[in-house]
């Protein structure tokens, strides 16, 4: 089924871009630079405060018409909308996790004369990432579900293919949508497994 392939492509691209966005925005919000901080704060609030469908339509329909920015393809419009949206949510997790690493950890690493960068890389981030993992896992599954929205901008993903089949023969609708359900669930299985695994990892050796 070609629909599965497209869903998976959109999913993986969104995961990669979304996590990158989460870290970039998360770090920006912790930066000392006020402009950077408020700019990312604005981005995060806008993308969290509006719905993904609207963002998708903006990127795909409105932006090209208003500013002549053409994203290039509905694939990239979809991926961009999903990753910017989830990146905004997840950047809050990144920021929150980094901030919730105990103050004593900063102090101990300073007392060992680590540089700011070493402190972040060796001490703070490894602990923060462990706190992020379980939530990141949940977002993985949410992202999969959101990929179905790209059918609305004409991408032939699982849902879109299902719709086509249904349109061809309405009596098949129950079977078709059952199959769509099964496909999504099969894709979700490894993600669910991964999430469990991440939760397990995050528990290891953290509590002090």
């Amino acid at each position, binding site marked *: 089924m070609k629909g599965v392939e497209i869903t998976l492509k959109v999913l993986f691209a969104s995961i990669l871009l979304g996590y990158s966005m989460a870290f970039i925005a998360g770090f920006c919000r912790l930066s000392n630079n006020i402009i950077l901080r408020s700019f990312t704060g604005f981005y995060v609030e806008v993308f969290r405060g509006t719905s993904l469908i609207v963002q998708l339509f903006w990127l795909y329909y409105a932006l090209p018409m208003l500013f002549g920015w053409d994203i290039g393809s509905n694939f990239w419009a979809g991926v961009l909308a999903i990753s910017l949206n989830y990146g905004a949510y997840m950047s809050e997790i990144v920021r929150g996790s980094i901030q919730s690493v*105990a103050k*004593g*950890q900063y*102090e*101990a*690493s*300073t*007392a*060992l*004369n*680590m*540089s*700011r960068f*070493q402190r972040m890389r*060796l*001490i703070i981030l*490894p*602990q923060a990432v*462990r706190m992020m993992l379980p939530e990141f896992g949940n977002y993985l599954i949410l992202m999969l579900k959101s990929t179905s929205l790209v059918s609305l901008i004409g991408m032939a993903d699982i849902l879109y293919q299902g719709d086509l089949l249904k349109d061809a023969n309405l009596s098949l609708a129950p079977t078709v949508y059952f199959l769509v359900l099964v496909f999504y669930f099969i894709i979700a299985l490894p993600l669910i497994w991964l999430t469990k695994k991440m939760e397990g990892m995050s528990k290891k*050796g*953290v*509590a*002090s």
Partner: protein
Amino acid sequence: MPEVKSESLQETSTNNEDVIVSYKDVKKSFGDVHVLKGINLDIKPAEKVALIGPSGSGKTTIIRMLMTLEEPSAGEIIVDGKNLWHMEKNGKKVPANEKHLREVRGDIGMVFQHFNLFPHMTILENCMTAPIHVQKEDKESARKRSIEMLEKVGLGDKLENYPSQLSGGQKQRVAMARALVMRPKVMLFDEVTSALDPELVGEVLEVIRDLAEEGEMAMILVTHEMDFALDVADRVIFLDEGVIAEEGTPSEVLEHSDNERLQQFLHRFRSSN
């Protein structure tokens, strides 16, 4: 920035070479609370100094400023001839940047009340990480020295354990080993036994006593263990209301002083124990 060792900043130290740490009229306020009102204190290499005083008198703040965890509001701290919080730039004295702080504070180590071990690392990794990344020591030698140090504090059999698997006393001994592998010239101890169950205090004090007897490292101990201070310290400093109110040998300060506030403090202390 290239080596900016200024003459004027160095001058302070050249005339007294047997001082490893020098506080010069150091003040510290938090908002409008003046916690330290002018501390002058010279510490000799290998000297063991016990810092005592009522709660809130600023003992922790004094040593945190030396560890660069807190910036003084005024005054200077000189470490091994180098000005800790100031550096020279275009012939002017300016606040130190991170690079300068790192150059100077390498001589200082600290052990905290609440251990602050790295929970995501094994005991051995807790000790090895800084020598490898900060001092660029090669892995094998850092590992070897860390193991030796952990054996010395009696934890040679816990190398692969995580901090969460240790008792408080063991954690604090790891914290000491972790600081010691950096070979500091001055080691700071902030009430390192006060978060421990009473029956675990002894094992930690014993390690500190051994360190003190070995000798070469200067030590500043903030402590409420008066008997221990009497035993280990070369000098006891009584801090009160933001100034050094009394100082001298342990027996002078703890047994023969007629400073009234000190008497009150010691009295309250003995009666509460």
